[in-house]
């Protein structure tokens, strides 16, 4: 690396300019640091401008009444008091946490079970794994529209057609205040399953087989092996997936938006997550300040939930 660097300097500044003697005076360690930071500079600049600056700006905006048109005016915590008094917000808050609290465990248990058994299947292993992974590759919007039609009432909804043939009463699904959220959650779990299975399987493969052999020689049953060896050793994988999947459910948007475009957020807002409310406040009502306040709340929720999970699932020594 050092030789390349010197070549670069030499050809870049021909004729013995003071730069070379300056470069020569630096220690190896400083040079290497400069080199590293030189490369890191661009992505850091990019993140600072594209990510961190707007994030900081959002905090400021949440204390203003900015509506895109007129200059933002500081209005203190008025946006937050309005938000906490808004029944719509609490409904959306409840929806978001329903997605999280019910969606995450179900999707993890399902994907672990599938990964655990798929790991032992040798027959058409690759094909079955591909089938599970396929939904993850599909565009969420396209998938949502297909499901939207599956869920239709008769005469066009496939699921209700099957119910009709089996003599099961027709279900309103996404037209119902009670069923809509769960109908959408099912599709979200299904879509994310492939990814989680792959990660779990990678985790399972990483456990040395010698552990299992030793356990079997010692006469441990399957259940005990699962509890004492597999699950504890899978912990890093599980922690990653819990955090990853929770953030996914807290940010759910595509499925909800596309499955209920003609009444965004489902009948009476029964499926509306926080992200959709933010989107509507910002880009339908153009209340940017109010939307920024909602964003700050979402940010705090994501932060607290992630930290809490990392704390609970931390390595206990």
């Amino acid at each position, binding site marked *: 690396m050092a030789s390349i660097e010197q070549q670069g300097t030499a050809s870049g500044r021909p004729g013995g300019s003071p730069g070379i003697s300056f470069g020569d005076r630096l220690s190896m360690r400083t040079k290497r640091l400069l080199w590293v930071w030189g490369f890191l500079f661009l992505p850091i600049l990019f993140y600072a401008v594209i990510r961190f600056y707007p994030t900081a700006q959002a905090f400021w905006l949440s204390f203003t009444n900015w*509506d*895109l*048109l*007129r200059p933002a005016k500081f209005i203190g915590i008025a946006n937050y008091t309005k938000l906490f008094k808004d029944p719509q917000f609490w409904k959306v808050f409840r929806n978001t946490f329903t997605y999280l609290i019910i969606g995450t465990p179900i999707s993890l248990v399902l994907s672990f079970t599938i990964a655990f058994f798929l790991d032992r299947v040798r027959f058409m292993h690759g094909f079955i794994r591909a089938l599970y992974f396929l939904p993850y590759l599909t565009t969420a919007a396209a998938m949502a529209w297909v499901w*939207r*039609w599956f869920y*239709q*009432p*008769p*005469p*066009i909804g496939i699921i209700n057609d099957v119910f*009709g043939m089996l003599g099961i*009463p*027709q279900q*309103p699904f996404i*037209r*119902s*205040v009670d069923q809509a959220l769960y109908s959408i959650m099912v599709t979200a779990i299904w879509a994310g399953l492939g990814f989680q299975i792959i990660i779990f399987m990678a985790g399972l493969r990483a456990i040395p087989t010698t552990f299992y052999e030793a356990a079997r020689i010692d006469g441990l049953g399957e259940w005990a092996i699962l509890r004492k060896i597999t699950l504890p050793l899978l912990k890093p994988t599980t922690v990653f997936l819990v955090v990853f999947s929770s953030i996914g459910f807290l940010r759910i948007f595509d499925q909800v938006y596309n499955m209920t475009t*003609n*009444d*965004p957020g489902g*009948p*009476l*807002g029964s499926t509306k997550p926080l992200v959709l409310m933010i989107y*509507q406040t910002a*880009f*339908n*009502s*153009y*209340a940017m300040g109010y939307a920024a306040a909602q964003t700050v709340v979402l940010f705090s929720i994501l932060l607290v939930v992630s930290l809490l999970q990392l704390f609970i699932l931390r390595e206990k020594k």
Partner: protein
Amino acid sequence: MRKATLFAGLVAGFSTFAFNAAQAVEIEYWQYVFDTRVKAMDQLIAEFQKANPDITVKQVTFPYADYQTRVIAANMSGNGPDVMQLFYGWLDKFAAGGILQPLPTDAFPHDKIESEFFPIVTAMKRGDDYYGLPTAVRSLALFYNKKLFTEAGLDPNNPPKTLDEYVAAAEKIAKHDAAGNLTVAGSTLDMGGQDHQWWREVLIRQFGGVPYTDNDQKVAYDSEAGIMALKFYTSLQLEKKIGQAGFMDEGQAAFRGGKAGMTIDGTFRLGSFRTIKDFEWGVTELPANAEGVRSNYASYFANGIGAKTTGEELEASKKFLAYISSPAAMDIWLKTVGELPARRSAALTEANLKDPIYGPFLKGLEYAHTTLFLDEAAQRQNAIDMANRVLLEGQSVEDSIKQAAEAEQEIIDSAKP
């Protein structure tokens, strides 16, 4: 040497550019992407440039979902359009935000606007100024499926004229399977479509009330008329079972699929319905009430001049706006897009009135109302929720109306510029 040639070339290039710029003035026209509208505008621009060789008009388009944000963002950065299209419901925001300038009265005198255009043009007036003029307007009518009419033993050439006839026809057309599921709707029920306009500007008035007062800034439907109008609407599903919200996903989809006898929709749906091959359909005026009272909801996209346009661009923009709101332009627009001319003289021609499709829409324009929305999306959502509370949660019509009126008043108050 090579550098010198390149430089000379650049200089020459810039000077011809500057020379051309001094000769001709270029203005920018913005609208959203909709195939036929863009084509019609291309045609209008070509005609206009033929008549005004010293003016070039550049058409810039954006997807509808992005359009408002683009206009607002461009205005902030100071390079917005000279002439732009806007929905009448955005005017408060656009005028208050300094995006539009009042139409100069020398080119667009008020008395002329008011005598030549349909009265709904006043929705573009704030204070003493007009901020835009429409090329075309849209109104609602009742579409009906002639095949389903014939099958139900109804006369396909005699569509319902009153609300009672409408309900009776729908009851005859509606079909249910053994389990009670709707298989063919008598009429579509879709608050997210045009039904909220029908309820707000038509049904409430037909039951003797008004939806709003104070220039549509005060909600007035928390009244006997509002309750009766919503009762009528929800009873179509709950008691008469002629339709069901969400049937075939959307009202227009159900009608297109030949699974609905009637649907209320606007002129903008004509293009889509014209491609229907499986059955013949007709259009008739929205049903009157028993006393013969009719109403309609009309809306339009208008064209206005950007606030930052001055000098010769302003002169060119005035000429262009005058042309695209002229009877000749309206004729081209009607033929290409299918939207009704905004001037009486261009609209109410004998040929248009006799036209079996345009006729009913045009008659509707004469008695149409235009809601001055302050936050269209939120006010529409409020109406959808109001109906859903009754249809899905079994809330009483009275309570739902009361809740909706309070919520909408709050939306209006917080959106006031």
